[in-house]
């Protein structure tokens, strides 16, 4: 089975501009940042959340805490990944009670990752509000999950995969559409 790159969806510059815009949007639509916190979903949601927090500091020096969440233990499809999953710790160095949380992930697809993330979050306490910020929304939801903040919406088919590649993890910076060919 081979992976074929079909097209490039975002360049490095476009990713950066989009994250800046998302940071502004979140601040604008949060009615105050006192209780705001970002939670990056491992793995690629983490650098994205950090970058968004960094961009927010550029806006009136807003300093929003960032936590990281590993959802492996909350997945509903553990069988597919269990054989090679490597657990990481979640690190949320603040109480989630009464917080205005924004989950951050790279791609929103079926919505199952977000459901798992919410399960994990609610084990920790009772947030005041949870919203979702994603770089790419590729459609094909299987659960009633929506993102409040979307970098870009992309139409995709089932056989395609959207890959977000970030310097911190992939040592390159772009978003590509790939396809599995047998």
């Amino acid at each position, binding site marked *: 089975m081979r992976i074929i790159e079909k097209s490039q969806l975002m360049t490095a510059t476009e990713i950066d501009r989009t994250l800046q815009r998302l940071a502004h949007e979140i601040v604008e639509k949060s009615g105050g940042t006192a209780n705001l916190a970002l939670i990056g979903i*491992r*793995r*690629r949601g983490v650098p994205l959340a950090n970058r968004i927090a960094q961009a927010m500091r550029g806006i009136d020096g807003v300093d929003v805490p960032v936590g990281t969440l*590993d959802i492996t*233990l*909350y997945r509903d*499809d*553990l*069988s*597919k*990944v*269990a*054989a*090679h*999953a*490597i*657990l*990481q*710790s*979640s690190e949320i160095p603040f109480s989630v009670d009464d917080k205005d949380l924004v989950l951050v992930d*790279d*791609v929103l*697809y*079926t919505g*199952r*990752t977000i459901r798992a993330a919410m*399960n994990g979050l*609610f*084990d*920790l*306490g009772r947030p005041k509000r949870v919203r979702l910020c994603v770089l790419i929304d*590729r459609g094909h939801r299987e659960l009633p999950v929506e993102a409040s903040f979307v970098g870009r919406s992309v139409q995709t088919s*089932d056989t395609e*995969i*959207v*890959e977000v590649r970030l310097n911190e993890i992939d040592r390159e910076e772009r978003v590509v559409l790939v396809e599995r060919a047998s």
Partner: protein
Amino acid sequence: MSHRFGHMLGIEPLSAEEIVFLLDQSKPFQEIQRHPLKKLATLRGKTVALAFFEPSTRTRISFATAASRLGADQMNLQAESSSLKKGESLLDTVRTLDAMKPDCIVIRHSSSGAPDFVARHLPLPVINAGDGTHEHPTQALLDALTIRDRRGTLDGLNVTILGDILHSRVARSNIHLLAKFGCRFTLCGPAMWLPKELECLGPPGTSIRRITRITEALEGADVILTLRVQQERLHEPALPLDEYILQYQLTAERLRLARPGALVLHPGPMVRGLEIDPAVADGPQSCVLEQVTNGLAVRMALLFLMIGGADAPPEKDSSHAAD
């Protein structure tokens, strides 16, 4: 790199990489013990059979709690009230449990090799919770996690083990594990409990010496593993208990002979005033309570790694499924 284990029968066959992997995978489960809500649904629908043919409180409760917190169900067999008293063989007993389709079986037995025997006869993942005088792998793992958390490393430490090492599966598993990281061992106790064969434990080149004087044995120690006096294993004590206390109790004064900040570990249950001075048991160098917490984390990690994820048919992928 990810590792998976069909059984967990002992530490001896594991590589250092596999051990490091297990310790690393225990960290998220340490974290979960601090959550307000400690229950996961990860192993929901799975059943863990706990077959304890030897009395145990702490290990059994630890495995039961680990299973519970992962959302798994349990089947509980306890020696005192078991059909073994009616003459049923080990194999028949475990086959009866297996016929009720658990997903794995955790076994503690007074015969060395019992878990291995069961693993060869049943198509079921087996976890050794202590077999005879052979091994107690999860104890060694939780001890290693405790040492690594406090010390930052397992490499090249001087480890002194105090007590009835002859009959101790805890000592053997610990030696197997820490020897893989280049630790050096001093075994200390009455000569009757330190047979020469103990020097052969661990991979070739492992440094093990046997010392009967506690003062000599403690010098330079980074880690002191205190074993209890196992009266139920002895047909006659090697020494009268008050002699043992006089010669081998880990007192605060003797602890000062070890390296500053040396860690004191005890597998439990402790008998205060026998093998350990209460001041030491409650002092800053004592790790006993962390050991218990870490035991839960290690057992959760092991259950997750061994039975997490059913054999369901593969479905449509989410992007970066194993992200």
